[in-house]
């Protein structure tokens, strides 16, 4: 009898303890009434009710940027009642996979959005339509000189233009202005440090332990940090690419045939990131730490994120924050950016092709509206038309992309190479490998991929 009672009691106590712990655990968001409910992005959106031409459009805009694009497409459908659009928003990595299988099966969409860095891969497969005829140099509507030379170069593979750029999106910092004020640091981006040592000091002032000591204090307890100055875990390969170029390094050799990330510049760049974690204790290791949640909960002072964070910052946290340009850890400035790009399957023909081109032209000519997504419109004329009061982060970060932006390497195996790099960066930023070993190992695998082509 006693055993039975003990058994039932044990099971019930376990159940109750689990529930109590669940309910009493700390919540993610700082409490506040001002936080509005997040807007869900529909995974499939049916836009327009026209019974005429129907377009299928795949993209990876699963965040609030998807909502912005769908609103633009709704205006297009209103102006073109004979055209309707089914938009499928698929997380980027899955989109790459789904596109490849769709092409094999002959079930590809009529138009899709990818990053410019994927153009060499899909271009080499011969599945993309040449879009040179859409630019004024080919007799089309899009002025070549309305796209920056850097962005334009990303649209090409083997001297053929395969893309029409929608935006430039890239790295920028979001800073918690309340934490800056508390630490006595100016929030004016013009006052940002220009050396690694300067940034370390800034992060140290912003990193606090449970006793309120910052990381410059001799009493600082690195085992009990409650507020991080920085976080290295936010998309590490983007940070690495920026730091690599800041130190004068390159991703690939000039002829694109040799991986050069394990140069002295690369090792110096990665070592700085490692030091932020293990030497200066101003960032948690990259794994096991949710950077966005950390920033949203007020435990991270400087979030290295990007243009896409604008709406997250405005709508989904109650943190007072503002955008800063990317850090400068090396002797020269560099920041990473990419471009969302429209592409069309090579086999699309007839009135459907006309409808797709009409839709792309509409979105391109209304790119100012696209700035509401947080991204920087690709057309220079649209960038100039942005209202500074409404779009400060787009303008600030857009200027850095134009002035010193660098992009992903251009190769038919970029995704594969970045996969190898990601794993090695993760090993280095979690104390499993030193910078040189990690980059040597990554370079070896990446070179094999590059050689296979």
């Amino acid at each position, binding site marked *: 009898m006693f*055993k*039975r009672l003990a*058994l*039932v009691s044990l*099971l019930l106590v376990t*159940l109750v303890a689990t529930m109590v*712990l*669940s309910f*009493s*655990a*700390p*919540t*993610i968001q700082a409490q506040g009434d001002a936080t509005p409910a997040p807007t869900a992005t529909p995974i499939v959106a049916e836009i327009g009710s026209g019974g005429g031409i129907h377009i299928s459009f795949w993209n990876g805009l699963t965040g609030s940027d998807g909502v912005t694009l769908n609103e633009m497409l709704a205006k297009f459908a209103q102006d073109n009642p004979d055209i309707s659009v089914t938009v499928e928003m698929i997380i980027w*990595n899955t989109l790459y*996979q789904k596109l*490849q*299988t769709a*092409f*094999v099966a002959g079930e590809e969409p009529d138009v899709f959005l990818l990053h410019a860095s994927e153009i060499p891969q*899909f271009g080499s*497969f*011969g*599945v993309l339509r040449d879009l040179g005829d859409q630019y004024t140099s080919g007799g089309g509507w899009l002025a070549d000189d309305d796209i920056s030379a850097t962005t334009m170069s990303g649209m090409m593979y083997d001297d053929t233009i395969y893309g029409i750029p929608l935006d430039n999106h890239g790295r920028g910092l979001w800073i918690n202005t309340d934490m800056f004020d508390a630490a006595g640091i100016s929030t004016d981006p013009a006052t940002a440090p220009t050396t690694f040592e300067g940034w370390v000091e800034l992060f140290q002032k912003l990193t606090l332990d449970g006793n309120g000591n910052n990381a410059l204090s001799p009493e600082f307890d690195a*085992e*009990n940090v409650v507020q991080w100055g920085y976080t290295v875990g936010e998309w590490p390969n983007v940070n690495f690419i920026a730091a690599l170029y800041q130190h004068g390094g390159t991703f690939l050799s000039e002829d694109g045939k040799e991986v050069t990330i394990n140069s002295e510049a690369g090792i110096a760049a990665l070592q700085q990131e490692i030091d932020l974690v293990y030497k200066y204790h101003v960032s*948690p*290791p*990259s*794994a*096991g*730490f*949710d950077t966005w*949640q*950390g920033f949203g*909960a007020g*435990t991270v002072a400087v979030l290295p994120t990007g243009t896409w964070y604008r709406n997250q910052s405005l709508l989904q946290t109650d943190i007072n924050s503002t955008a800063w340009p990317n850090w400068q850890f090396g002797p020269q400035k560099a920041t990473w950016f990419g471009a969302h790009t429209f592409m069309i399957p090579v086999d699309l023909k007839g009135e459907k092709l006309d409808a797709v081109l009409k839709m792309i032209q509409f979105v391109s000519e209304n790119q100012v509206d696209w700035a509401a997504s947080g991204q920087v419109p690709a057309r220079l004329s649209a960038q100039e038309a942005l209202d500074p009061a409404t779009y400060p982060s787009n303008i600030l970060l857009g200027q850095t992309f134009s002035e010193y932006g660098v992009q992903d390497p251009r190769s038919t*195996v970029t*995704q*594969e190479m970045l*996969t190898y790099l990601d*794993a*090695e960066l*993760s*090993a280095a*930023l*979690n104390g*499993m*490998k030193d910078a040189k070993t990690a980059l040597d190992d990554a370079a070896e*695998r990446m070179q094999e*991929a590059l050689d296979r082509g």
Partner: protein
Amino acid sequence: MLGINARLARPKWLALLPSPSLRTREAIAAYLFLTPFLIFFSIFFLRAVVKAVDFSFYDWRLLRRTIPYIGFDNYRELLDDEIWWIALRNTVQFAAMTVAGTTIVALAAAIAVTQPIRGQGFFRVLLYMPSLFSVGAVGLIWVWLLSTQFGVINYGLSFFGIHPINWLGDPDLVLPALSLTTIWWGFGFPMLIFIAGLQGIPDHLFEAAKIDGANGWQIFSHITVPLLRPTILFVTVTGVIAQFQAFGQPYIITNGGPGRASYTVIYYLYQMAWVAFRMGYGAAVAVTIAIIIAAITAVQFVLIGRRVEY
């Protein structure tokens, strides 16, 4: 009224053939029942297996126009592939921890819920419930539970003065953490199997042992475990097969990290086939995994199966 023999009476033209034996007729009937399954199995599974073996001899990229035959080159590369060996080592560790943990927890839970206690049905349902969740839901739940920043587990440990532990970021802890997740998720089904096994042990054996003065542990080790060996064999064999194919947990919870500390062989297969789009190499990985699982299953049958009393 027509009897079954009348309904199964042979057509006249068949009378010209020698009459099949009862055994043959039963075999024909059995295969006829199996036929629908075999048709679907052949179309949707066997054909895919044969194609996968075939693909493993080609350098097949999904959209590339040429698919060169390269013989055993994919297999040779696999044997020299450092990441493959890391993934295999991780998988063996993960499967060993998870199968052992699942078997122990499931057996303990089965014994607990077969006791004549109040609310027996409620506890059976409660303990089985995690098995009903998808791996996506389980992954998200455990990312939160194990979180360094907001996790309930670290929150509980903080009452004992323990600083937050980076369960998913520490290379030494990540596999045990994924294993713990999987045990919680997966012990419900083996628990049901053990309940059935326990109910199949005749009560008089326990009663006789009690009369002879055996204590609880002696009854468990000398009666319960030996008579559950067929069940234990089933649970461990199916467990190894399942855990060798673990994918959703590292994919959703850790992305294979930190570094490659939680790469499993199926995660690596996914990376090769669906990130690098090296389908031929991915097929070689898949075939090799199948061979390894078959070999381990055979060893399990030899080691545990020969001591099984059916």
